[in-house]
């Protein structure tokens, strides 16, 4: 049942289109092309001598170094050592960070006392403290894990209490109005509400943990990707250096992917 008059006019020009755009969509194909082009250019540059081997080894050399790592079986030893440190350090740092962050988020006293401490200690570079860490935590796994723990603890604290601060006050008030106990409100309203912030904090702290791996493995590490990089650096074996750095980068991407999955799973309600 349409408007009768709509049919009778035939002149008239269409309304000009002025929408669209401003929503860049990544084309899946471009990323691999860029990567491959970049590496091909780099390889070509190295072979033609346009990029001196002193400046950057050819990707093929780095790949040889990688194969060497695989063939000697050292890759797994390095990876195993690093992963163990990363996981223990990151996990305990995150756990402690969530606990302290929750305290700061919930209690005036903790907030007043701890949050300035956190802001004061957060910007301290961990490598500066390595000499002290050796004395405090020994040269075994302790100091390596502690370095990573320290690095991940602070961002987690900040993410957690930021998350708690941003929990919808309306939901808390709802909980109170139904007479929920304080513990119920914390467990069922505040913590789940802060979870998105905590997870995005975990994303950051995972990146920091990987960055700190090199610093951590400055201390008496025989195996580990960080130790491998340090040795390569001191030997000026740039091919191995690039390999180690690429391994770290891949590790970072894997961690980010895992946390992405966790977000999908835990925040499926969004």
């Amino acid at each position, binding site marked *: 049942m349409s408007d009768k008059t709509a049919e009778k006019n035939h002149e008239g020009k269409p309304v000009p289109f002025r929408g669209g755009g401003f929503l860049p969509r990544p084309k899946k194909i471009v990323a691999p092309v860029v990567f491959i082009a970049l590496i091909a250019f780099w390889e070509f540059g190295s072979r033609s001598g346009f990029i001196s081997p002193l400046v950057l080894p050819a990707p093929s050399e780095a790949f040889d170094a990688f194969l060497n790592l695989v063939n000697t079986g050292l890759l797994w030893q390095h990876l195993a050592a690093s992963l163990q440190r990363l996981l223990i350090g990151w996990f305990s740092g995150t756990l402690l960070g969530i606990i302290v962050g929750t305290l700061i988020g919930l209690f005036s006293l903790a907030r007043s006392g701890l949050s300035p401490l956190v802001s004061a200690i957060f910007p301290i570079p961990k490598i500066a403290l390595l*000499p002290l860490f050796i004395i405090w935590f020994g040269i075994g796994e302790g100091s390596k894990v502690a370095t990573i723990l320290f690095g991940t603890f602070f961002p987690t604290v900040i993410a957690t209490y930021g998350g708690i601060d941003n929990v919808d006050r309306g939901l808390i008030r709802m909980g109170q109005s139904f007479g929920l106990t304080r513990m119920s409100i914390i467990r069922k309203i505040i913590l789940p509400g802060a979870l998105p912030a905590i997870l995005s904090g975990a994303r950051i702290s995972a990146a920091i943990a990987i960055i700190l791996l090199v610093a951590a493995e400055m201390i008496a590490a025989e195996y580990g990707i960080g130790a491998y990089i340090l040795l390569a650096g001191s030997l*000026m074996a740039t091919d191995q250096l690039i390999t180690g750095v690429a391994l770290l980068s891949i590790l970072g991407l894997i961690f980010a992917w895992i946390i992405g999955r966790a977000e999908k799973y835990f925040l499926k309600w969004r």
Partner: protein
Amino acid sequence: AADKITVGALRFTSHAPSFVAFEKGYFTDEGLEVEFKFFQAAQPMAVAIASGDVDFGITAISGGLINLAEKGAIKVIGGALQEEPGIDGQIILVSKAAYDEGVTSPAKLKSRSFGITQAGSSFHYMASKIAEKEGFATADIKLVPLQKVGAIIGALKSGQVDSWSIVPHIAKALLKGGEIMQIGMVADYIPDYQVTTVFTSTEIAETKPDLVKRFLKAFSKGADDFNAALVDNTEGEAGAAAMVELIHKYVYADQPIEKAGPSIKNGAMRINKDAALNLTNVKDQLDWFKAEGLVSNDIAIETLVNTDYVEIF
């Protein structure tokens, strides 16, 4: 006009010849206008020479140095610090705890831990040589890479590593504390150890022989003054004091001379006359690096050393 050159240096007594040559005008006499670049560690200095930021440097032979030489970037052109029996050289140290457990001589280092900065460093080489001479494998010593001298000191003091070897000015200061004991001298194990060498970029070594010669001449004159004043003690108290005062401008400058003086004196070791180079020992070091798998096996000694400039032995 004077040729401008950049010399890389660490604030150690072992770099004193350059400071002496500068302060006493030996560089100027050779028509060189010297600018020092100070480093915290030897490794970046080698890289800086490779990248052309620095023209001359003095440092121990390390894996990094050899690999840079392999890439055609740098060359060793002369010798500097050398171990010499009879002159206080590098000292082998153990922690009090280890000492009490009976590690009273280097022979007992088997299955003990030993602090090094990094695989392929001079500490690594020394540990290896000690093991060899005492008749056990390097693998029998637990090498602990701690990246920085400071970290090793901390670990040694707190008993987390058992042993270490280090230049005398640091060692003697540590021995005063009582937490650390001396058990031997490196000179007894590597009698003619060429600890540090003079090096430059391949480009300079091959295209500017004149510049290299002038630098080495001035450097040697500085070394002679230094040896005379602090190693052979032929200049008397006053000469020694004057030398210490000169060096103090560069080393431990932030401490008062009363505190810095002894440290400077303690660090005095022989600098090779005329920058002569102990090629035999350098070869031994290179072979050791190869054996440890730290550098490629096909590096020839000529790749590392340019023997055109100084006397070799």
